[in-house]
């Protein structure tokens, strides 16, 4: 994991001091709310329905046990004893007080954490693959490059008042676990025939009001120049992105209006200006950061076998454990989607428990996934049973990864001021219809994603089944979408037909799943595959016929 040096810590400390001063000036009435709002947003602080909401950055979703324990402490001391892990691999707290915020920032900075640029019209927290460093199919660990981007984008003087927010994701394998084609910039690390590393660069993907799959603007940029190339993309966007309409201000609209070819030409022209200016970090800096992500010293003698005699454990292993690149090790996913729970929520006790287990069994490293679950990436197979028991003791051993009850849901109108409808109760009602694990396993992989408004924080456009909350004359209503994917085969879900009320949408999902189970070609054909094979018509008939 990356550890701060004196420079990183000095910058964070200065930033904390700056925001404390801004808060103090706001509390004294020296600046207006209109002036303060962009400042607090750039420090992750929103005003939501019930209180201030704070979004703490978890760079590329990786954190240590010590950091997780601090997140638990924040929940206990400043909030109501829980936090919410988000689809951007961050954590949110729902009940923060502005007058306590300075102390909270001090606490976070003690463990090399902060909330900078988790909101606002700037470059947001960089996201990445939750299996980074552990997946067998990656060409290299993508996180050093995410860290280079984090540093480059932190307090960037030219790009802190962009037309709109800006999200970057980095992966290093052909399997896409970070939905890079649905980001403003998606970077895929690759290795060429000469053994060199470079990125394929996607630009202009995104969900929200106008969902778009990103376009490749460059098939290869050497790793040594990807920061200046990113600078060129951002400059074209900052100068020419639309500022007359907030719904058309994301870079995807600029790419679409210019056309990919013209947009790419403008980026290349800008890069020609920037490339000679020495903006890229030197190799020594790459080496310094890469060294900090060196894999842990794996025990080469670790047995590669597992005792699966406990049937409950065996079910969890089958569903939530993935192969690791090192023999004798495994990747364990901790589901934050327990029965009747709130997707992504964790209590302080659960966060503490995960911190303890990560220190004991997983080389002190935890990942947050965009599906609102947690991952322990380096677990000895010999320790998996003890880990599972420890997770089970705090209600974190639900064996439902990627199943129908592993639902993404944004906070929705239970918390969020932008929402048009509640998301969490829909997720809970659908999960309750399929509580029986055997049924879930029979249905197989099925990604249901629920958003409470068109902004799409619940990734409904990337759902095999997507649900979008809308406002219908003051009443909550829900649209049904089918066929989305945020993986390497990215597709955008499409609306199936007229919307429903709260109970109606649950019945509709039941009908879809019932139809699928009868229509699939075999047990291996996923819901999404059946939809792709048959098209929407029979699914529409099943729901509305």
């Amino acid at each position: 994991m990356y550890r701060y040096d004196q420079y990183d810590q000095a910058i964070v400390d200065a930033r904390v001091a700056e925001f404390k001063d801004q808060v103090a000036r706001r509390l004294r009435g020296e600046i207006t709310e209109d002036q303060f709002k962009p400042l607090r947003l750039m420090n992750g602080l929103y005003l939501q329905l019930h209180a201030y909401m704070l979004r703490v950055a978890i760079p590329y979703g990786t954190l240590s046990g010590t950091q997780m324990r601090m997140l638990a402490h924040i929940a206990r001391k400043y909030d109501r004893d829980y936090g919410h892990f988000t689809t951007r691999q961050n954590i949110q707290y729902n009940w923060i007080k502005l007058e306590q915020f300075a102390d909270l920032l001090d606490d976070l900075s003690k463990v090399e954490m902060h909330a900078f640029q988790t909101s606002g019209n700037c470059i947001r927290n960089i996201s990445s693959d939750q299996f980074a460093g552990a997946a067998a199919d990656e060409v290299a660990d993508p996180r050093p490059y995410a860290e280079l981007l984090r540093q480059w984008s932190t307090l960037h003087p030219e790009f802190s008042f962009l037309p709109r927010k800006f999200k970057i994701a980095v992966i290093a394998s052909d399997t896409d676990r970070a939905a890079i084609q649905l980001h403003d910039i998606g970077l895929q690390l690759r290795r060429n025939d000469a053994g060199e590393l470079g990125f394929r660069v996607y630009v202009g993907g995104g969900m929200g009001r106008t969902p778009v799959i990103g376009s490749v603007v460059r098939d290869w940029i050497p790793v040594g120049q990807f920061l200046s190339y990113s600078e060129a993309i951002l400059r074209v966007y900052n100068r020419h992105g639309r500022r007359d309409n907030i719904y058309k201000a994301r870079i995807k609209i600029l790419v679409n209006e210019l056309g990919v070819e013209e947009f790419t030409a403008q980026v290349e022209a800008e890069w020609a200006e920037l490339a000679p200016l020495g903006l890229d970090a030197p190799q020594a800096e790459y080496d310094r950061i890469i060294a900090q992500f060196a894999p842990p010293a794996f025990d080469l003698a670790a047995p590669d076998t597992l005792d699966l005699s406990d049937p409950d454990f065996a079910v969890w292993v089958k569903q939530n454990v993935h192969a690791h690149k090192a023999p004798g090790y495994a990747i364990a996913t901790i589901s934050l989607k327990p029965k009747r729970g709130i997707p992504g929520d964790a209590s302080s006790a659960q966060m503490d428990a995960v911190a303890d287990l990560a220190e004991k069994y997983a080389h002190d490293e935890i990942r947050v996934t965009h599906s609102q679950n947690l991952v322990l990436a380096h677990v000895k197979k010999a320790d998996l049973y003890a880990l599972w028991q420890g997770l089970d003791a705090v209600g974190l051993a639900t064996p439902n990864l990627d199943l129908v009850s592993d639902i993404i849901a944004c906070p929705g109108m239970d918390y969020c001021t932008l929402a048009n409808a509640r998301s969490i109760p829909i997720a809970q009602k659908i999960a309750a219809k399929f509580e029986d694990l055997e049924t879930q396993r029979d249905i197989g992989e099925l990604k249901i994603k629920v958003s409470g408004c068109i902004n799409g924080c619940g990734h409904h456009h990337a759902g095999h089944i997507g649900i979008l909350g809308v406002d219908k004359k003051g009443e909550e209503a829900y649209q049904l979408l089918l066929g989305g994917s945020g993986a390497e085969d990215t597709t955008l879900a499409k609306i199936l037909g007229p919307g429903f009320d709260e109970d109606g949408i649950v019945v509709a999902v039941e009908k879809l799943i019932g139809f699928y189970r009868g229509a699939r070609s075999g047990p291996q054909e996923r819901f999404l595959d059946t939809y792709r094979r048959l098209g929407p018509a029979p699914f529409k008939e099943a729901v509305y016929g």
Partner: protein
Amino acid sequence: MVDHQDQQAVAGAASPPLDDAPARLRFRSDAPFESPIAPLADFLAGGNFAAVRVDPGEDVRTLLPHLDRLKLVEIAFPKFRDGRGYSSARILREAGFEGEIRAAGDVLVDQLGFMRRVGFDSFAPNRPLDPAVVAATLARFPHVYMKAADGLAPVWALRHQAGA
């Protein structure tokens, strides 16, 4: 009504009208330049001006052939949320312009640090700034992560300088 929070980049509240005599803040040792400032179109039409004003939608690169006869480029900020002027200033510095670059209009004290980094060296905010807050703001950050137009060495240079 929905409060769009971070979506207010464009829909922000209207700014107050420009003050006739805005408070000036200048970080140059040469004498202030006091002749008329031409709108970009008038300057490009061939008028004999040594100072020009660039609005957010205007392409500052059209000035690049004329930098040697310019003493002042004033970059307008009608709304503090509109960040196009930051790129304009940095492009001028990258092209070697050493004259005065002034940020004028809805310029907030909390933006001064960023603005200094992209090359602004004078400010005409339409609301007066508290000198103590200005001083604290500009002294805030001991290090920077990335190069810009101010010549500061980014931390990656400090980390790997000879003998470090």
